[in-house]
């Protein structure tokens, strides 16, 4: 299964994502420079964390218009799998591939720490290796993780079971403690916590790893189907 990690100027978790896929999941993975206008055949695309374009104007606002994003949008609309982690999630929101927007943490500080999440939906390609309602420890590191969506949008998320992860103790003011969501079709995941930072026990927790193993299983299954 071929994975791609998009690199924007200012991305800084690209190497961590690459390592998780290459060294831990042991799958082929390539970096995709943001100026690329053509996506080769990838089975999954990752938009990594960081400070693309220095978070200028609004986090993810400028990266959203990078040449590669037109391809990513086409890819996602065509059913391709996309994971946006932290800044990647913010870019997916700006691009409209996921509903809602990110605001600054209510504490007005950057927060880096391990948090406990509840896995709300295990019927997605990204969470099938978890138990429903499982509590997991995955770290956050962000300035803008305060997820916002209007009442109508929130109802729609609930109706379509799009909420995937919730904070058990809300660290940033995020509405309904939302930490991660998928789109209606279920092929695009956005999450603020960093699964690539909790994929090895010696880093403190490997609770993030099932995000990748679930996806690999799902991709393999999909490729068998006629």
């Amino acid at each position: 299964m071929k994975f791609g990690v998009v690199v924007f100027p200012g991305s800084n978790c690209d190497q961590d994502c690459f390592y998780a896929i290459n060294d831990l999941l042991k799958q082929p993975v390539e970096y995709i420079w943001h100026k690329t206008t053509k996506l080769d055949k990838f089975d999954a695309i990752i938009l990594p964390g960081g400070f693309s374009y220095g978070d200028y104007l609004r986090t993810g606002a400028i990266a959203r218009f990078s040449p590669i994003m037109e391809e990513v949008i086409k890819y996602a609309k065509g059913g391709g799998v996309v994971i946006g982690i932290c800044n990647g999630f913010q870019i997916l929101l700006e691009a409209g591939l996921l509903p809602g927007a990110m605001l600054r943490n209510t504490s007005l500080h950057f927060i880096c720490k391990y948090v406990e999440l509840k896995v709300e939906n295990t019927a997605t390609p990204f969470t099938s290796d978890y138990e429903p309602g499982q509590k997991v420890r995955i770290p956050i590191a962000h300035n803008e993780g305060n997820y916002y969506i209007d009442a109508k949008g929130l109802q729609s998320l609930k109706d379509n079971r799009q909420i995937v992860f919730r904070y058990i103790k809300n660290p940033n003011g995020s509405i309904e403690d939302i930490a991660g969501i998928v789109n209606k079709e279920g092929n695009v995941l956005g999450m603020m916590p960093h699964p690539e930072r909790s994929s090895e026990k010696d880093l403190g927790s490997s609770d993030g790893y099932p995000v990748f193993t679930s996806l690999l299983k799902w991709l393999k299954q999909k490729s068998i189907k006629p």
Partner: protein
Amino acid sequence: MFQAEIKITLKKTVADPQGLTVKHALESLDFKGIDGIRMGKFIIVRLEAKDQAQAEEEVAAMCQKLLANPIIEEFYFEVKKI
């Protein structure tokens, strides 16, 4: 040459903890009677345009497409010939 002065703030329906913090800070410096504070961005754009109408159209499009996020922000602007 035209110059646009653009103000972008969070929508009133969105909480503004920065505004609140700044309000408290001012109150602790004995400024009284502050009813509320909203923080925002101020952007100055100088651009070439055929006329005032075209300049305003351009600036509105810039705000809608990039400068403001319509989910959480609203914008106001003034365009002057310079």
